[in-house]
């Protein structure tokens, strides 16, 4: 079999062996329902309490501010709808950006159908939000600012602390989707004036299908999922015991490993970026050159289309992702790449390599070896490239 190099850690990560080890007993032995008062239940309850402490500690939060959800997406939905409906009499205006994850964007769009007004802030060519524009977008009716901590496609890290300060000054709730940021960037909800923060397990070597919503004590918010009294009556449903335990462990490991992770991965990232630039012509780096996740590489490779690149890489055993519409079956390429001003055909030719703790130097060298001939082959087939060479660029 060919070598398999996984560089799609922003899509999802494998579960860390130590995380799996912690989870395992909770499937078959310590499987009680945390709401039960017998010993099986009490054991389960304790495990959940411990995980909650691990998460709270990692964010600088209190344990009673941590709520487990069924995904990062659910955390985003809960934060935005919950704040919107609970604060409707105060106002109906929400501020967000054009480059949010669909979990935020589609939730905002749903609210627009229900009488809310949403401002989608533009970003600059690096994907950065302009805090002056943010300030001038604030109205008397603004009840929520939701800006992602770091972007999942291009890796740009937003000025979260500054945004938190603006929100605080104006008495507006501030939510941040930190699904991609947590484990890649130090986070402190108090220092950064964050009122609500979303996380997801599967981006940090935890399991898929669990998330966290941090809700600052005192924030007025409705429930999203009604039912039993779990999570202090705020999020109903029998707790995903094994995953809660796993998430707690994954968070703990991520925090322990943070410095090393940032240092090692940003080195590999920079090597990969430099290598691609050296070896392939007509390539552009997307996202901010410095304020960038340590694990994110996003490049546009002119004259070729993303899916073809991905499948060719896949045949060489390399897993990556793309902002091309072809990967999703729709016509428009990634809204993020369009928002930073890329022309459609350039956006279609974008590739994202997202590194993880399992990524090695050899992996990077392997990609740098495999990618150039793939690009050559596809460009040789591309009418856009031969037009360019012939001087008839119509892009």
């Amino acid at each position, binding site marked *: 079999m060919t070598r398999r190099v996984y560089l799609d850690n922003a899509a999802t990560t494998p579960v860390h062996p130590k995380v799996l080890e912690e989870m395992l007993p909770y499937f078959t032995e310590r499987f009680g329902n945390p709401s039960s008062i017998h010993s099986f239940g009490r054991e389960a309850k304790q495990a959940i309490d411990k995980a909650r402490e691990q998460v709270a500690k990692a964010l600088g939060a209190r344990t009673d501010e941590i709520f487990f959800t069924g995904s990062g997406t659910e955390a985003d939905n809960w934060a935005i709808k919950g704040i919107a409906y609970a604060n409707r009499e105060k106002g109906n205006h929400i501020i967000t950006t054009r480059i949010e994850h669909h979990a935020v964007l589609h939730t905002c769009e749903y609210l627009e159908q229900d009488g809310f007004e949403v401002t989608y802030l533009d970003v600059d060519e690096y994907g950065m939000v302009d805090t002056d524009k943010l300030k001038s977008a604030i109205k008397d009716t603004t009840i929520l600012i939701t800006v992602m901590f770091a972007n999942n496609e291009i890796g740009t890290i937003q000025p979260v602390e500054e945004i938190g300060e603006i929100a605080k000054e104006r008495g507006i709730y501030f939510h941040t989707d930190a699904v991609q940021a947590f484990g890649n960037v130090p986070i402190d909800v108090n220092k950064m004036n964050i009122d609500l923060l979303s996380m997801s397990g599967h981006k940090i070597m935890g399991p898929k299908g669990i998330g966290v919503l941090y809700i600052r004590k005192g924030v007025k918010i409705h429930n999203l999922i009604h039912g039993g009294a779990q999570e202090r009556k705020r999020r109903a449903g029998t707790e995903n015991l094994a995953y809660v335990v796993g998430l707690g462990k994954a968070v703990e490991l991520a925090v322990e490993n943070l410095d090393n992770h940032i240092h090692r991965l940003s080195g590999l990232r920079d090597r990969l970026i430099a290598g691609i630039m050296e070896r392939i012509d007509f390539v552009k780096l997307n996202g901010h050159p410095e304020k960038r996740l340590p694990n994110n590489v996003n490049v546009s490779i002119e004259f070729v*289309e*993303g899916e*073809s690149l991905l*499948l060719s890489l896949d045949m060489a055993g390399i897993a990556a992702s793309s902002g091309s*519409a072809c990967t999703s*079956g729709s016509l428009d*390429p990634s809204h993020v790449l369009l928002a930073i001003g890329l*022309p459609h*055909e350039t956006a279609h030719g974008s590739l994202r390599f997202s590194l993880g703790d399992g990524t090695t130097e050899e992996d990077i060298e392997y990609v740098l070896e495999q990618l150039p001939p793939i690009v050559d082959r596809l460009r040789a087939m591309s009418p*856009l490239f031969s037009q360019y060479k012939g001087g008839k660029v119509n892009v």
Partner: protein
Amino acid sequence: MYNEKVMEYFTNPRNVGEIEDADGIAEVGSPQCGDIMKVYIKVEDNIIKDIKFQTFGCASAIASSSMMTEMVKGKTLDEALKLTNREVVDALGGLPPAKIHCSVMAEDAIRAAIKDYMEKNK
């Protein structure tokens, strides 16, 4: 996602390239949609003697163009004009629903190239 045949035509596409002195040329699709197909034909006695293509697009766009060129090569113009996207899909052993438009582009491309030839030779 794709079957082996599609992957084979994507990996080893037949008839890639340009024809310098082509008798008919056409380009369909648009960079916006992420798919462009360019087809070159060489015609003798109403028969497609040679055909080449260039495609900017996803694997199924490349495979569809390549399969189409194979299917019309050596055919009369009338026969080639009758080629449907369905036949291309069938010849490829099927495409995912979201990718059927690639076979439509292949059909459009050969028709446009023949039309270009006819206009030039009116």
